[in-house]
């Protein structure tokens, strides 16, 4: 049986006095490709930002390997952050640095590796995402899909236990999107990492998702969860069904 890697417990998300989502409770098992799905504006990316320490929840907490994230001391929280890798929607590569410098920065900050060793790790990470030889390119010099993959190389720099993907398919053509899905699957299988994906792209959801949570913008809470393929077959909630069938009626 898979162990619980992440637990989101009684989480409320608010902007000022505006409730985004409330009473979120779910667990992510080690090795899952866990999909956070729902319509536009339901708070998927906001949930991700709460899970990676960018926004403090109004209530509730996130637990990694049973340890509280938001109740932890700053040093403990920093240690947990080092075990997370995040691929942002835009890639979020630092524009003044080359791809190699982008991937090398976390290695330089958090490891005692020598410069030559860091170069080897950077070369491996870029090769894993199909960007071998692009070390000296700046983000502005490569395509959107390549920027996404370079950002993935940076997210993997410290061999994280958990990889977060915020709308990985956004802005990509269908082929690049499919290749990125394959890459996510491959990385999960080979690295054994737990993967959290925020998306509303149905082909991606069914291709890579092993577990999921469905956020509803109307009721402002989660209304379904489980394997997306099982949800498609068995979930009777009309909102979930419409979403998973691209608006088809029962």
């Amino acid at each position: 049986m898979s162990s619980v890697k992440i637990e989101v417990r009684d989480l409320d998300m608010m902007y000022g006095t505006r409730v985004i989502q409330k009473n979120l409770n779910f667990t992510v098992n080690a090795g899952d490709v866990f999909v956070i799905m729902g319509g536009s504006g339901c708070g998927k990316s906001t949930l991700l930002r709460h899970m990676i320490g960018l926004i403090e929840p109004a209530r509730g907490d996130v637990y990694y390997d049973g340890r509280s994230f938001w109740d932890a001391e700053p040093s403990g929280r920093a240690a947990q952050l080092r075990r997370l890798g995040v691929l942002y929607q835009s890639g979020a590569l630092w524009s003044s640095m080359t791809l190699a410098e982008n991937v090398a920065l976390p290695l330089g900050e958090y490891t005692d590796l020598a410069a030559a060793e860091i170069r080897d790790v950077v070369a491996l990470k870029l090769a894993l995402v199909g960007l071998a030889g692009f070390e000296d390119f700046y983000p502005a010099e490569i395509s959107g899909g390549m920027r996404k993959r370079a950002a993935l190389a940076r997210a993997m720099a410290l061999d994280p236990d958990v990889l977060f993907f915020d709308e990985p398919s956004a802005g990509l053509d269908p082929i690049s999107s499919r290749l990125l899905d394959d890459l996510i699957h491959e990385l999960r299988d080979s690295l054994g990492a737990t993967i959290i994906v925020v998306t509303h792209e149905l082909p991606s959801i069914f291709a890579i998702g092993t577990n999921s949570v469905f956020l509803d913008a109307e009721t402002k809470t989660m209304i379904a969860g489980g394997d997306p393929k099982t949800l498609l077959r068995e979930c009777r909630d009309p909102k979930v069904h419409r979403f998973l069938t691209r608006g088809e009626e029962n």
Partner: protein
Amino acid sequence: MAIAQIEGTASAWQLHVARGPSDAVLLRLSGRWTLDARLPLAGAVLDDAQSDGRFSRMAFDAGGVEAWDSGLVIFLRAIAAEAQRRGLDADLSPLPEGIRRLLALAAAVPERKDTSAGARRPFFLARVGTSTLDGVREARALLAFLGEAFLSVVRLVGGKARFQRSELLLTLQQVGAQALPIVSLISFLVGIILAYVGALQLRQFGAQVYVADLVGIAMTREMGAMMAAIIMAGRTGAAFAAQLGTMQVNEEIDALQTLGIPAMEFLVLPRMLALALMMPLLGVYADLLGILGGAVVGLGTLDLGAAEYYYRTINAIGIDDFVAGVMKASVFGVLVAIAGCLRGMQCGRSSAAVGAAATSAVVTGIVLIIVSDAMLTVVFDLIGL
């Protein structure tokens, strides 16, 4: 038959090289093969293996590996590449599936060679309340920013601040040397204007010779530092706000925070440091160019001699005037940097927000310069500077 036994520091990992069946050599890996364990060099391992004669095939046994990360994958990639270079056949099939998949993935692509808010207008009292709350939030944000900036300076003094030295040097160049042309032009013209305005009045009672005194004191004590600061607010403060604002839009600052790297140290500190270091120098440079502009008017239209103008200027300017000007320039530099970085860090997540941040940085910078100048002038008068 064993050929070599290699161990890592504190026996974290072990590599046993043995003669295998027929013309093969077997590399048996055990222990922890992780990046922090200082793994062996592929070339040295193959040299050891080949020290016992020629072989054409390499086999692997990783059954004893207790833990691994990218370090093992890097080692095996290097071994495979080195084996290929030496004409050896490396059989990676006995390796665990995860490692094989990563090796295959790394080799899969060849290396490249060549809303609108409610339309209804809120009630008057609601607007007053909202504005008041906005003001309070703004003040708290400013105080928080100043506190964080102060702590980052403390960490800098303690040698614990984390930022890229190359970024500091680049910023020094941008705010220093690259600002000289515009500072030269404006300061020179301000000197000319001061001299003309002064000459018009002083000429009425035959005291035009005091133009040198007027320009010298005005530039060193006040106008050199202030004009340089206003130029830097428009040029550099806006640039800082736009740079940091764009980084907000691109989630680059989020990426730093997620990695636990304080944006205040990594992005704001080098900019503040650069302006604090460069502004006094730019202020002095502006003084000199302003005096030169005044001299051009004095020599060209007031029939003053060069030596006479020079000695009047030297005698008029006291060390206290010079010190007051340099101190003001230093304060203005820090204020311009704070205004630019604060607005950049507060920037929203759209391109329009970047423009608003840049505009706000310039306005805030100029207001801070004038207010602080007035305060410093009073303080200097009280302490006799």
